[in-house]
């Protein structure tokens, strides 16, 4: 099925089209949820809630951008709304965590897998992780993140800076990247 026919089918509330759309995008969207969520079950709950919103609001899609991007925005907002219901998340996202992580050094993996990078992101404290996910991966600005999380824009910036430092340390200790020439290694690992 083409994306256009899927869209038309979903607008008619046809189960086959909905399942096709779900099958096409759910693996990627679950990975998005997983980066935000506390665990796999929470991620699946977020995905479920997000896709119900997608199907119930599909008439609002205006073909002015990528369909995947539209779905992704709904999923990300669903994740954030779920996180914001948790008091400890709201506290952690507004607090500067000064303490570094203690990470055991690992042998250099032969192939840098996306999974290892995602798992390293998930090691971060939830406040750091959320801001890093939104800024570095989802492409939101610090102003937008501030609005989404109800924090100051400057807080988002400082959270991101620390999150980035912490993640770099983790990646170095896991020998996914090297400390002396991080960027060069990053570039070299792109093709792996």
């Amino acid at each position: 099925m083409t994306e256009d026919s899927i869209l038309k089918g979903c607008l008619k509330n046809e189960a086959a089209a909905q399942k096709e759309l779900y099958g096409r995008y759910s693996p990627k969207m679950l990975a998005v949820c997983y980066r935000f969520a506390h665990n796999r079950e929470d991620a699946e709950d977020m995905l479920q809630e997000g896709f119900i919103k997608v199907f119930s609001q599909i008439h609002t899609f205006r073909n002015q951008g990528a369909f995947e991007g539209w779905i992704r925005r709904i999923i990300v907002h669903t994740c954030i709304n779920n996180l914001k219901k948790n008091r400890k998340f709201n506290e952690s996202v507004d607090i500067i965590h000064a303490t570094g992580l203690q990470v055991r050094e690992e042998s250099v993996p032969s192939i840098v897998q996306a999974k290892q990078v995602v798992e390293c992101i998930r090691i971060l404290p939830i406040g750091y992780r959320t801001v890093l996910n939104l800024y570095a991966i989802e492409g939101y600005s610090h102003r937008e993140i501030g609005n989404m999380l109800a924090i100051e824009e400057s807080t988002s910036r400082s959270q991101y800076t620390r999150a980035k430092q912490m993640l770099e340390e983790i990646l170095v200790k896991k020998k996914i990247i090297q400390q002396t020439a991080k960027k060069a290694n990053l570039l070299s690992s792109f093709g792996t």
Partner: protein
Amino acid sequence: MDRNFNDNDDFEEFLKQKADQYKIYPADRVWNNIYRSLHHPGRWIGLGLLIILTGTSLLIGKNSIPVSFSGDLHPASHPAAVNHATGLQINGDAIRPAPTSARIPGGKGAAMAVLMPRTNAASVSVTPLHQQADHQAVLPEPADEVSSSYTLITLPLRPRPTASLVIPALKFTEHNDKPVEPAMAAFRRPVTSPAPGKFMLQFYASSMISYRRLTSDKPALTGTPVSSQYAGNVNSYVHHKPAAGFELGGKLLYRLSDNLTVYGGAQLNYSRYYIDAFSYKAEKASIALNNKSFSADTLSGYTSIRNLSGFAPEQLQNQYWQLSVPLGMEIALLGHGRLQFNIGGGVQPTLLLNSNAYLISSDYKNYLQSPDLARRFNVHTNFEAFVSYKAGGMKWQLGPQFRSQLLSSYSNQYKVKEYLTEFGIKFAVSKSIR
């Protein structure tokens, strides 16, 4: 999103690329829940209606059973009997009340009647990643040496972990294996996602308003002390008012699927209603009884409570303390995640612990007490609808409930049948225990 990736930060590009490469295939239940939410809300409503109809038909079926009566209609066909509680003795028609035991302690002045000869009447698994093939089978990437070198906590798909989960998501250690502390503190939060355990323990309380419905055997029997001018529907001759009671209980729930839960438990019910009556001088009152051989017996006694007129108004209370074993099911009809709309229902085998009830005499003129006529074992049905909300690892729920008694409050010997119906608002809190 007003920011593009023009910052040319290699680190961010690296992260984005790797993150976008990552895919996780969701469990089938996710699509099933989405599909059900989008297409089949009516199916569960239909099932709920089926439960209601079944309960209603049970009630109607029970109450419409004709009561046949035949045999010797002479009063007090068993000449002598002593009620051990009161000392009242009946010998044919002669009644000689024992002076000190004619009144019931704590009663409202009604005399104790005497019964004639009676017929025998969300755990968390902590495992190295390389051992988690079953949990991670849906992930496309195989575990490699990185993942096998540190400890990763993952949550199995089935069963889900308990709600009291407090864990660091990943535990990295230095060589001395000291646990990673404050930076990981943000991970230590109670799981507030839908309750993951199969078993849940629930405690609940409900305020209940009790109504009663009376029926009587028809036609009025010749030869029994039923006044002809009062023959007819007993409800026309009594003035009863509903009163507040309560229900307290606990039950164990087992989740059969995402939408269906079965349960069993124990609960205490206190039910009561008011009776408007009048005080009067002590006079003899009788209750005609059915007995096992369908001959007529009579229960007689002295009472100072009149039904329709008297010296001064009196308000009596009929009170029942019951212990029940609720067995039934709950169905999630609408909603997903934290907020849901549910219905539930079941049966409740019930043991009467204690009662303080006034019975109307056969001529509808008087009220008297006779604990011997109270039915010890009964069966109730209940139906409830409630909204549930999951927060802080607990499931909170609130909604109306309806409870109905299938058998009369009194034994089959008493010709007037009383069926209690209770309505209330039930509050409950549940927690996963596994």
